[in-house]
């Protein structure tokens, strides 16, 4: 399966929602602590080497996350360490990019998510404790959601309701928001340690998962959030990201500081489906293709991006 070696440390990888062979990768120099960042656009191809870089954009600070526009097949949004949010058009040459840059967050922007239902707006989560709502044609953010007491690591849209999103924070809470409401609509103290990531189930708009420094993943039903539906143990260190499968109701993927990527079925007792140990440093980015069932991608501090089919060995070429 294809492997791409980046010059910097990997932070995030995302499949294009328009082209099954296209991915974007966010990377940062010196483990994202100090230095530049780069966004790679990768193209999968049938023969060897299997993956090639079609374009790259350099940034002055680390790139922590990237997402594809749901409305324009060539447009990318990037979350940058210096607090900026930048928009790139891969149809234009690098010198004409970025096409927009928004400097509003006071600290590192850690995640970005494009609205999949309304397709006109996106969310950014930042270490300045806020989440911001943006639209491509507006000169500034539409709204700032400021309730969390510590870094917000991820904000993610509900797959059905175009006005609802969830945010995961280092203040140990998960919050649910409706952009039409003045404040958050629900606060779930989901873990006793920092929550690093969250995601909605693509088949049940009331179910979501959180991952935490406490090494667990918890699955929640917002209709009865007193106790989690499931607690998934198995990672040896903080779980950096969790992601529901776009194809299978019960399946989810996670990656962790323990350097592994895991697949889980949260409905069965023996939840761990498989564990991949192909990364040799912290695994921090994971995605599952919407267009090809079972196609997965991961990246980590070992500067490698792996793309593989579920059930196969990511290292087998």
């Amino acid at each position, binding site marked *: 399966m294809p492997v791409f070696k980046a010059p910097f440390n990997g932070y995030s990888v995302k499949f294009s929602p328009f082209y099954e062979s296209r991915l974007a990768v966010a990377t940062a120099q*010196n*483990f994202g*602590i100090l230095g530049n960042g780069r966004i790679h656009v990768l193209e999968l191809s049938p023969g060897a080497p299997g993956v090639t870089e079609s374009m790259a954009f350099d940034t002055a600070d680390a790139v922590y996350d990237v997402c594809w526009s749901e409305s324009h097949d060539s447009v990318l949004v990037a979350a940058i360490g210096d607090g900026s949010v930048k928009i790139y058009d891969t149809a234009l040459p690098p010198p004409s990019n970025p096409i927009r840059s928004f400097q509003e967050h006071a600290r590192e922007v850690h995640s970005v998510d494009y609205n999949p239902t309304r397709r006109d707006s996106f969310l950014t989560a930042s270490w300045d404790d806020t989440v911001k709502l943006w639209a491509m044609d507006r000169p500034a953010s539409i709204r700032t959601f400021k309730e969390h007491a510590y870094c917000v690591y991820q904000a993610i849209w509900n797959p059905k309701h175009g006005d609802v999103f969830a945010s995961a924070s280092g203040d140990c809470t998960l919050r649910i928001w409706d952009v039409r409401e003045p404040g958050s609509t629900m606060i779930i103290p989901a873990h006793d340690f920092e929550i*690093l990531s969250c995601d909605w189930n693509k088949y049940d708009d009331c179910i979501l998962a959180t991952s935490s420094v406490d090494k667990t993943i918890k699955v929640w039903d917002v209709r009865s959030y007193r106790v989690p539906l499931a607690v998934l143990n198995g990672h040896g260190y903080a779980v950096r990201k969790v992601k529901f499968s776009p194809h299978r109701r019960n399946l989810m993927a996670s990656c962790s500081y323990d350097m592994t990527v895991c697949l889980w079925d949260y409905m069965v007792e023996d939840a761990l489906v498989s564990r991949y140990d192909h990364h040799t440093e912290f695994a921090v980015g994971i995605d599952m293709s919407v267009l090809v069932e079972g196609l997965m991608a991961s990246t980590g501090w070992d500067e490698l991006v792996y793309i593989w089919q579920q059930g196969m060995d990511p290292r087998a070429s």
Partner: protein
Amino acid sequence: MEFSSPAQRRLETVRSHLDSSPTDDRTSLFLNATASPFSNEDDSYSVVLPEKLDTGKWNVYRSAKSPMKLVSRLPDHPEIGTLHDNFVHAFETYPDNKYLGTRVRPDGTVGDYTWMTYAETAIARQAIGSGLVYHGINQGARVGLYFINRPEWIVVDHACAAYSFISVPLYETLGPDAVKFAVNHATVEAIFCVPQTLNTLLSFLAEIPSIRLVVVVGGADEHLPSLPPRSGVKIVSYQKLLSQGRSSLHPFSPPKPEDIATICYTSGTTGTPKGVVLTHGNLIANVAGFSLAIKYLPSDIYISYLPLAHIYERAHQILVVYGGVAVGFYQGDNLKLMDDLAVLRPTLFCSVPRLYNRIYDGITNAVKSSGAMKKRLFQVAYNSKKQAIINGQNSSPLWDKLVFNKIKEKLGGRVRFMGSGASPLSPDIMDFLRVCFGCAVREGYGMTETSCVISSMDEGDNLSGHVGSPNPACEVKLVDVPEMNYTSEDQPYPRGEICVRGPIIFKGYYEDEEQTREIIDGDDWLHTGDIGLWLPGGRLKIIDRKKNIFKLAQGEYIAPEKIENVYAKCKFVSQSFIYGDSFNSSLVAVVSVDPDVMKDWAASEGIKYEHLGQLCNDPRVRKAVLAEMDSVGRESQLRGFEFAKAVTLVPEPFTLENGLLTPTFKIKRPQGKAYFAEAISNMYAEIAASDPMPSKL
């Protein structure tokens, strides 16, 4: 939380992700304090006892590990009384373990390590011992070892132990005069050498009449010179001796614990060499005491490159055998040591401050030239990990991943224990090693006359800048030195000359009653000549040397070695010699420069480089080096009169060959004074010229 920079914030954020242990859980478990008379919180590493019941003065320190009785035998194996017993125990317990490894092939090329097992070594040492008997060398005869570390050295040493020969190790770097003196003084009958040292021996063979057999290690018989038959000296190769011994095996003649095991010639910083007589019992006692402080395991790998003729390496070899450890030898070239480390990947690494200082310089220079970002990253990581170590916490694995693992790889990546001895290690450098290599770093203190270790740092002691608690095999007291103002009443800590007593004390200097009486007093205390103080916790700190101290004109005492250690941290300085006397009010320095740093610096300053000597004589260069030394001195908080006021740069290093160093790399001060007499007087003239009105206050 507020951070001074985004980088610090990011590092702290990632670090916090890796720390999922509930805070303050360490308080949930604690030791139950018991009412032992020997342990209290103030003196946790040592216990204090009265020297004599009638005087009532409590000034004798023993290790808290064995306060009632000084250790003289290995606690788990008290039946081991001699080096021979120790080796028999090892090869019976670990016959098939790797023991001696070398990467030098018989044809002289270098490859991967090949190993002899403990059982193979046992067979070889019986053959070598039998070979010596075959040549008429009898029990009690002195056998010289005059070559660099390699497996044969150890085999011969074990042969000596098994057949009751007395080994006389000689530094391979010793010059003809010193070798001649030691061989004659100890009436050595057989001597092992290599082709290089054979030539030295042959040049004065007629003047060492006691020699009857010369064994050449690593030489082929057909290349050996033939001697006139009348000379009475036979030359054989090691291989031939081995086969001669094999075809006429003799039974062992095991020594008794009180028999002499070895005579070690220490050059000392002045005068003629002295032969330190150590018995089997001395060496076993020392190692037994030290074995309570650190356990070596059969899975360990030790690299042998410090001279085997030095007691520090010799004692380690005994401990290593007891543990069933594998010993890999370096190629014989210090410049290729890093390469050997990368191939061997040892778990135990013992060294001397000189080498640790070089490692420190190498890493800090690499960090400085790696760009502002990497430098900052290193600083943040270093400070954070150091803080964690001081607080006794586990440092985040993040720092190791980001920064330190790459550094650790330089020593092969597996080192779990680092030892330092032979001279004082600066506390900064000890902290630096602990942080960068993430392993136990412990400093010890000892001397040949005490069979090696007098004191060593205890496990879990994170304070640097001291040499730990007494070896359980000896007791230590401090004796007042009124002429230097060191007394047991000193505040905040008692100070004085370090005196040692116990089963590790040597039997005396070989055939030198007078010098023996000078160092061992009527109550069997050995006076080391080192000045120490007791830190809280019963930990010894070496602060001075009784001999190496002089007064400046204004009456300030100067301990030059301390100042030299400070200047060793300066990037230009490879070695330094600090001089002062009571006729002058300031110090001057002779510095042997680091050629690479000099060259790079000259290039960066646009100073033309012809040869090193020309740079050394350039006043601009001298000024720059002195400025750098001043800043290092300020950083280390030297007192004003401890700064060198003028410097002379010399291109050539201080070495054994030019007579400026002892084999343990200590500077010979009287020789240095004579050697640099002209430079010293020029420097004082220069100081006088620049300061025409000396303060008359």
